[in-house]
């Protein structure tokens, strides 16, 4: 089953990255010590989707849903357990070391924490220059010129070439992280929570920078974040993850205006909105995300889902096109324009009629 091929049959949108049945399992302690049995956590569990050239695909989910793991596995910063990742039609999971090293020029990552992701003993020039050294791209005066161009590109003063990371604020450090990621002119960038560690007034600066650079350099970006408002603002399409699976995927407006999956709908209803007049119908989900080491049978979300039935416990819903270009993994997706509250009450009514 490949949902994407249905979604964009003839459009010029061409996938740059294709992820097929990607799995990442981690063994954990547990099971019997003497029996040697091992438990596994399915951090990424059979995920299939495509990232189109030039788009920003946002990936949202709560902590532990596997969104960062997914990002790392696509770049092979971790080795996936199973599945295939195609970059420009080539399965990069089959690549050997030197092939992979070449590919690294084209795929880069921006990390969340601008404090721990920069080496404190390197100057800015060295941090960015390392990229050119590793790939043998530029030396000496030419390298320095390139580095200064990058520093300027991300909005810092090139005269700070010889400064160390601790001399910069959090936002400036994140700019250095971005300069490093973009130094080799990659086509594809994974931005893993790039603004989560920053203060509000600095967040918007970095978001603006990312949007501008994406436009100017024609980047394709996988933007991972838990802030729904941030993801909405920056993404062309959005994927929603829950316990290692993508449960909903569509264009940003579809997701935010007419969510199909009850989890997405509930998630959206709980975002604290910066406007006291907007009193939303809040659906506060009960309970917590179950442990990924021991996920519920069937649909992983069913334990918290207000619409769940017996079927959800038995049968795992596949990611299907429920509306035009709108994919959801749910047996009872919301109809267009239907709110979760309406769906809940109609479910209750139908149940009553059954019991009567």
């Amino acid at each position, binding site marked *: 089953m490949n949902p994407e091929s249905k979604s964009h049959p003839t459009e010029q949108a061409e996938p740059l990255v294709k992820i097929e049945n990607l799995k990442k399992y981690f063994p954990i302690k547990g099971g019997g010590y003497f029996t040697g049995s091992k438990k596994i956590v399915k951090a990424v569990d059979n995920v299939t989707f495509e990232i189109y050239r030039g788009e920003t695909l946002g990936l949202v989910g709560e902590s532990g849903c596997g969104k960062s793991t997914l990002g790392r596995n696509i770049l092979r910063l971790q080795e996936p357990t199973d599945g295939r990742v195609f970059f420009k039609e080539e399965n990069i999971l089959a690549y050997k070391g030197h092939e992979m090293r070449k590919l690294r020029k084209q795929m880069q990552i921006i990390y969340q924490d601008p404090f721990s992701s920069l080496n404190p003993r390197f100057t800015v020039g060295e941090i960015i220059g390392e990229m050119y050294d590793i790939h043998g791209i530029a030396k000496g005066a030419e390298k320095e010129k390139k580095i200064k161009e990058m520093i300027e590109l991300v909005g810092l003063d090139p005269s700070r070439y010889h400064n160390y990371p601790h001399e910069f604020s959090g936002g400036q450090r994140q700019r250095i992280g971005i300069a490093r990621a973009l130094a080799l002119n990659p086509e594809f960038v994974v931005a893993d929570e790039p603004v989560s560690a920053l203060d509000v007034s600095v967040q*918007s*600066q970095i978001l603006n920078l990312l949007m501008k650079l994406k436009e100017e350099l024609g980047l394709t970006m996988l933007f991972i974040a838990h802030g729904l*408002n941030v993801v909405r603002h920056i993404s062309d399409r959005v994927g929603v993850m829950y316990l290692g699976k993508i449960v909903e995927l569509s264009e940003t407006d579809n997701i935010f205006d007419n969510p199909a999956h009850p989890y997405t709908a509930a998630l959206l209803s709980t975002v604290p909105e910066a406007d006291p*007049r907007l009193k939303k119908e*809040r659906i506060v989900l009960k309970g917590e995300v179950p442990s990924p080491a021991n996920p519920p049978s069937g649909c992983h979300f069913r334990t918290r889902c207000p619409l769940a039935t017996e079927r959800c416990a038995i049968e795992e819903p596949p990611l299907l096109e429920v509306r035009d270009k709108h994919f959801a993994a749910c047996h009872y997706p919301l109809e267009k324009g239907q709110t979760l509250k309406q769906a809940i009450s109609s479910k209750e009514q139908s149940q009553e009629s059954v019991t009567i």
Partner: protein
Amino acid sequence: MDKILEIDNLVTAYQGKEGFVKAVDGVSFDLNRGDTICIVGESGSGKSVTAMSIMRLVEFENGKIREGTIKFNGEDLAKKSNEEMRKIRGSRISMIFQEPLTALNPVFTVGKQITEAILFHYPIGKKEAWRRAEEMVRLVGLSDPKARLKQYPHELSGGMRQRIMIAIALASEPELLIADEPTTALDVTIEAQILELLRSLRRERNMSIMLITHDIGVAAEMADRIIIMYAGKIMEISDTQDLFDKPLHPYSKGLLDSVPRMDGERGVPLNSIEGSIPRLNEVPDGCRFSPRCPFATEKCHEEMPPLEFRGTRQVACWHVDQLLENDSLSNDRKGGEFIEPGIKEPSY
């Protein structure tokens, strides 16, 4: 109106390498009984230090209240001895923290920690204390309280730990609850649960709440009144609705505009505030916000404006009249009218 808390000209400083640095510099505000007030600010704004000063906990981390009074029900907490403070802390004023895992003791069960709080404040027996602890755990919305009490903090999830923290904080039925970023470490769905819990507790117990947050959305949902702090000073105090309708301070406006809205236009450049937050030991002269303020003039760079009343609201800005006249602060959410400032860092 009955005031539970009156803070006047609070100055709290920390011992640094080169003398004292003021983390809170001349902060004054009141809290009405039964109200929820939110202190909103970015890192280094002094919002947490204000809370730690009220609890007189700054002394345990090298800080000192240098000036000012903190009147709680008319009594000045700044003058209390440590012994006296110990009786107030956790009984009449309770506090919950951002990271519940570090705030809870890992080697004791949850039940032990809740009963400890109860036994400290009430002259009752152990059995009775356990019964009350069970009640508290049920009150904060956890299922199977008996089993929960036997668990250790590491066995609980982040949301459950925060509920336990709230249970401990409420065990003594405090008049004032100070919550320092109580939901920052939590996921949105769990955040919604905790905020719901705080709201219902406030309704049922008529508790006053001081909530500290960097999230303007959380403040919008919870607060009756909002205090905007920046670099140790209060910039604006307003009723929640007023603030969101029309902020009076350029920093308040910048803060509101920086947050992408769920109904805003997508993909467009966000209004952002230029530059970065000053470090405590290098706060600028004059208005703290002046180096980043698009409207700053010579006067702003030289003299800090006082926090002055405008109707029910208070604002510290030299140019508020002029800005209101030009309608520069009205919250159209599309922004745009911010004049290009003296560029430190480009805005994109």
